[in-house]
């Protein structure tokens, strides 16, 4: 017994303390409770992992039965294997750094205790998600992190846009969860259990499905859940809006951890996915389409957080390309390095925003390199990492993914390489607009305090060395065998060339001769505007789904069906009975004599009827 339950329950305790009494506490103890609970959790992860050693097989702990109905038994069971170990380290490690950073970032915001209690609650659910030993417990974490995301996106409660974004995130995720839950129902109907071990043991002997069958259906339904949580086409629309939340939230939930849950889930259910080539193709294609589409939008955005948000959508697409190509460990590898450099990009962006007193528009930045040099320094590490510059962390994981993609279908490799070039281009664009040239804003920039750039420094180191320091595919090899085949050096050179080319092009367009972008934008005209307005997908969903649903419900279902038709019948019946009753009331005059008369009449009629009937029988 390693008391795995402590890992999620420590942050839960932090949530309860801050949630119940945090309002009456000053900021300092609130932050101590919040950070300490995550630090202890991180410490417990380290202790547990060192005690469990190589983790050749999963370590499972059973606590109690959550519910039992008939033969279906769902336990509160936690488990650690190598995949979970990687996730635990990322979630608690990066989570801890972001919590520390938030002490400084949120210092002047209202609702300090509320912020930290939600963050702790998030850690609880995220850790439940990765530790759960059955699908339903994973689903608990899955919906729970969605709730925290909802609460934190809508953290600035007075802003209408924040409320809208929060609601949108929850509902779009619910659509994904619809798929997840249907998949679970199918699993139980066919395998009688939700425990990973039992289900996967039952699936392993099954043959690979050449045409769509049960496993394809289950895999695709799970993947619907993944597209919701991990912001893939067609359910990615909530993530860019989610940037309404405070920046540490964007870093923790909407970049490093929660949004990668879909990748984790796909890897976790790899046994099912691998037996359905069709589902694998769908995963890969959705991944590559998302990666490319989000990257094009990222090129046109001016809000620094929006640029990074589309970049997150795009990078998550890469992870799914890996999964779809069967290289699950490469997907998890990119998940890890992405957690480092994307958290750093967001926190660095937060540091810039903090320095500029809330300014997020790249057009009002510029020349900040000298004014906030530490922020620039750390952001540069993330920039080179995401661009895939050799030696930096992103290079290694992206390389693995593109290799695997080329192995399964070359066209995905080529789209991926072009997207890598676009990625390098738009991140460089953001960097040049922000730090190069001359300052275009009015606020006096100031460097962030140590409590903020300290964590940034750690993440910067990880973004640089995280790739070759942590060889994730090698560690996960017992679960996901490494791909065979020669490592083709040419393919690596090509992708590096695209990355460096993207940086060079951005340098040319935004530093050397800054007039070019406008010329291009004008030349492309309608196409540019379509991309700038995010392909009008939100508007399309609004017109095709939301409005018909709301207006149809109001006019057709409520006004016509409910109030008109059904109540019309009910009230009509009532009116009719009143009319009939009015006639019948004439018989009930209250006068004994008239009653007597009616009784006589009635008797006579009855006798006559009986007589006629009797005659008829004879």
């Amino acid at each position, binding site marked *: 017994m390693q008391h795995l339950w402590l890992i999620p329950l420590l942050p839960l305790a932090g949530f309860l303390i801050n949630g119940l009494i945090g309002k009456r506490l000053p900021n300092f103890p609130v932050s101590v409770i919040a950070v300490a609970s995550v630090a202890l959790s991180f410490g417990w992860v380290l202790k547990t992992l060192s005690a469990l050693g190589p983790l050749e097989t999963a370590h499972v702990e059973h606590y109690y039965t*959550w519910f039992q109905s*008939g033969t279906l038994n769902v336990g509160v069971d936690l488990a650690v294997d190598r995949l979970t170990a990687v996730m635990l380290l990322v979630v608690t490690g990066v989570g801890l750094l972001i919590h520390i950073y938030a002490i400084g970032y949120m210092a002047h915001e209202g609702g300090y205790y509320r912020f930290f209690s939600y963050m702790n609650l998030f850690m609880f659910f995220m850790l439940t998600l990765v530790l759960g030993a059955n699908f339903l417990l994973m689903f608990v974490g899955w919906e729970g992190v969605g709730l925290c995301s909802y609460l934190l996106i809508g953290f600035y409660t007075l802003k209408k846009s924040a409320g809208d974004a929060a*609601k949108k995130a929850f509902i779009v995720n619910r659509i994904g*969860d619809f798929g997840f*839950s249907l998949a679970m129902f*199918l699993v139980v109907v066919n395998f009688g259990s939700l425990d990973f071990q039992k289900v996967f043991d039952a699936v392993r002997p099954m043959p690979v499905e050449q045409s769509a069958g049960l496993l394809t259906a289950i895999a695709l339904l799970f993947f619907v859940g993944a597209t919701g949580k991990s912001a893939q086409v067609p359910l990615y629309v909530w993530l860019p809006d989610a940037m309404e939340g405070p920046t540490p939230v964007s870093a923790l939930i909407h970049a490093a951890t929660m949004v990668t849950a879909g990748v984790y889930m796909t890897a976790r259910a790899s046994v099912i996915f691998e037996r359905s080539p069709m589902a694998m193709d769908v995963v890969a294609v959705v991944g590559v389409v998302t990666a490319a589409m989000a990257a094009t939008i990222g090129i046109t955005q001016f809000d620094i957080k929006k640029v990074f948000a589309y970049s997150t959508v795009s990078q998550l697409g890469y992870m799914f390309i890996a999964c779809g190509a069967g290289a699950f460990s490469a997907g998890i590898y990119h998940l890890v390095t992405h957690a480092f450099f994307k958290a750093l990009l967001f926190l660095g962006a937060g540091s810039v925003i903090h320095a500029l007193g809330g300014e997020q528009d790249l057009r009002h930045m510029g020349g900040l390199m000298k004014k906030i040099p530490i922020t620039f320094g750390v952001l540069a590490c993330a920039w080179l990492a995401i661009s895939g510059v050799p030696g930096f962390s992103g290079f290694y994981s992206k390389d693995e993914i593109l290799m695997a993609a080329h192995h399964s279908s070359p066209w995905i490799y080529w789209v991926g390489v072009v997207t890598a070039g676009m990625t390098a281009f738009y991140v460089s664009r953001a960097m040049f607009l922000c730090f190069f040239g001359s300052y275009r804003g009015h606020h006096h920039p100031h460097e962030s305090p140590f409590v903020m750039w300290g964590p940034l420094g750690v993440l910067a180191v990880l973004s640089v060395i995280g790739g070759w320091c942590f060889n994730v595919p090698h560690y996960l090899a017992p679960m996901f065998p490494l791909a065979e085949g020669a490592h083709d050096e040419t393919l690596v050179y090509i992708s590096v060339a695209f990355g460096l080319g993207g940086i060079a092009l951005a340098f040319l367009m935004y530093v050397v001769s800054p007039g070019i972008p406008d010329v291009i934008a004008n030349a492309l005209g309608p196409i540019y505007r379509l991309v700038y307005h995010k392909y009008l997908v939100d508007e399309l969903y609004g017109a095709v789904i939301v409005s018909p649903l709301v207006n149809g419900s109001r006019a057709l279902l*409520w006004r016509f069906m409910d109030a008109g038709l059904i*109540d019309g019948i009910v009230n009509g019946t009532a009116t009719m009975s009143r009319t009939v009753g009015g006639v019948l009331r004439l018989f009930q005059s209250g006068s004994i004599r008239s009653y007597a008369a009616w009784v006589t009449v009635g008797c006579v009629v009855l006798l006559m009827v009986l007589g006629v009937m009797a005659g008829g029988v004879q």
Partner: protein
Amino acid sequence: MNLLNLVLALPLAGFLVTLVLPKNNANVIRLFALILSLAVFVLSLGLAAPFHETGNGNWFVTDVPWIQSPEIRYHVGLDGLSLWLVLLSTLLTPVSILVSWKYIDRRVKEFYAFLLLLEFGLIGVFVAWDLFLFYVFWEVSLVPMYFLIGVWGHERRIYAAVKFFLYTMAGSVLMLAAIIFLYNKAGTFDYVNLVDLLQRGRLVLTSQEQLLLFLAFFVAFAIKVPLFPLHTWLPDAHVEAPTAGSIMLAAVMLKMGCYGLVRFCLPMFPQAAHRCQSWIVILAIIGIIYGALVAMVQPNMKKLVAYSSVSHLGFVVLGVFSFTQNGLDGAVYQMLNHGISTGALFMLVGYLYERTHSLEIKDYGGVSTPAPLLATVFLITMLASIGLPTLNNFVGEYLVLQGSAAVNFNWTIAAAVGVILSACYMLWLYQRVFVGETNKSLSHHHPFLDMNGRELAAALPLVVLMVWMGVYTKTFLPMVSAANQRIIEQSKTGVETLVETQGGKRIAELRELVHGR
């Protein structure tokens, strides 16, 4: 006198005592009603104790003659199905009394008297094992609710009360006819006897008879549930009822219909139930989606919650008519969950109404700023209601959908759409009422106050239960499961016995009838 009789008798005694209390001292009446109902609740907790000894049987049974001819018996008892519904009634009565403390300021005496009479009727419905006795309690509970709506309601209270009464009466008359028919045929009103006779083939109903009897019971219960399209009394009744009336109506009274379906329709008329399964399930699914969509566009908070009930109770009917252990367990669990979360929603909407005298959503906005506690409790209740895991509704919804998936996966797909929609209407409601800039008209007359101690005391037990029932089902579910297991057995053996007694010729036909659909 065993504990069950005491729990049943005390509210009736309380009703009678309240009637003779002096009417000018309102606080004495309130205090008396509260203490009495709390005592009933505490006593009723003891009702769960014998479960582990009796296992799958009934406990606290009393079976004595009441009327000689026709033979009507005072036959009451508990099983895992009745028990929690009784506890739900005994818990929500003191909660309703606390909620009404300030809200009801005229005809106080009559109000609390009716509330206690209602409690008596509700407990009686859930424990009666004699069909006639059941019918009596069924009607007893109807009367006080009629007055609660008709006397203490809002502007259109008379219309709503009469609509409520007529709808329910229409159903109960059919049920009475069916009960009398059964008596004529079998010579007993006793439910246990009847099921036994039917199972052993001593009482044989033609499939025609069974279908008609089933429908008579079914319509009575379906109106009460309410099942689409028999639901239109519900929004009116809720909008017009005082807060306590809405709470008791939604939380407990609707469960009378659900309970009846499980208790009577399944074991007594299994073939007919199976025969009607598919169209009943279709109505349930329509109700789930239709209720949610109509809830989404309601401008009135109480109507919104009322339509959400139509949607939630569709899940209950779906679970019951899946005839599976998971489905039934989920359905019964969902009855309790709905009682708690929707009861709490009506309570919180009532709190809002007491502050502004408006039920219109547009009159609110940004309430979380002046009333953070109220907003938090509402948030938790809302999350319970939309089925967030770790809160109570999730377990019930999950089991219902799992049960229906085992029968027909398409049903589950359609019903699960309701889970998405529930998030839509609830989050939108929360956003418009609690989030954003504070609506200026809110503090127009008085400062908008947060929940006070009394209001919190009424809400807290429900919030605790939402978490408890969500994370630790062991307290509740095994008893429910045991009772359902027996009901499933009964509905099964009934089928097989009949098949045997009808002779070889009709076997194939009946098999097709039962399993074919």
